[in-house]
């Protein structure tokens, strides 16, 4: 060992000392395995704290299902009522048009009869 190499050798020794193989303490492996098994078997705590947690209660679950079903029935009913109303309004329009046409043709007949009467009375007056 030369005096120039002395600091390097000391550093080398220090590193070897720090990185030397050490035996694990007793029970370390068992403890590690037990913790790993525990982590895999338990559910994630984030799910437990979810806002959907209340659905796990049977009463709430049934109430939610009933509400969904009721809103679906209501939706179908509203749709049917609206459809019936639209059909009824269309039928009313047709009815009114039919009556308008009938009324217009009655008035046409009336005006023709009046025309003929006027013509006849004019002719009668001319003859006299």
């Amino acid at each position: 060992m030369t005096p120039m190499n002395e600091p390097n050798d000391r550093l080398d020794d220090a590193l070897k000392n720090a990185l030397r193989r050490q035996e694990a303490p007793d029970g370390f492996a068992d403890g590690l395995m037990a913790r790993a098994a525990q982590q895999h078997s338990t559910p994630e705590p984030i799910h437990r704290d979810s806002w959907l947690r209340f659905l796990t209660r049977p009463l709430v679950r049934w109430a939610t299902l009933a509400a969904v079903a009721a809103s679906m029935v209501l939706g179908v009913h509203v749709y049917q009522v609206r459809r019936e109303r639209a059909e009824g309004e269309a039928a009313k329009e047709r009815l009114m048009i039919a009556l308008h046409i009938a009324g217009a043709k009655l008035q046409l007949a009336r005006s023709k009869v009046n025309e003929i009467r006027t013509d006849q009375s004019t002719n009668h007056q001319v003859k006299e």
Partner: protein
Amino acid sequence: MKKTKAIRSSKLKYYGAILALLVASSIAARTQDAKIPPDVEKLSAKAKETVEVTMDGPMLHWASKFLSADDPEEAKCAKLVANLKGIYVRSFEFDKDGAYSTADVEALRSQFRSPTWSRVVGVRSDHDGDNVDIFFKLENEKMAGIVIIAAEARELTYVNIVGPLEVDQLADLGGEFGIPKLSRRSLSKAEKGDHK
């Protein structure tokens, strides 16, 4: 055994005949007042505009439920249709004169030459060619229906209203002479609404 089968078969035929008779008579009763000759129905193919309204009793009463009492015109209509059994209208508007024949009109008129019908108006106009016929149906001396056949140069209209009605009230609904153009447009809207 064979005898039983024969009896069963004859019974079935008997009931079948009765059923057929009932169906036929009900169809005949329904269409009795609403016969439109096929040739006249075909005119819609030639027509520029066609108005077809067929409303039987239940349909008529259902439609009248949507008439508003607040609207004076709709209130008049509601009063008019309250006791009606059916309304049938065919109105064809053509592009040119002579699109339909006198035979077509005669086919319509001939149906109402029967003791139950009386022709109360028959107008034949030489100068503009407009012909209008009005037939009344009387039952127990009461008005039970009206048929109007108006044959104009470019328009043929057939109206059949079944049931008692006030003719003056109906004429009031006519508005100005002729069919308002707006009505035809709103009918096409109404028909579109039906298909929705």
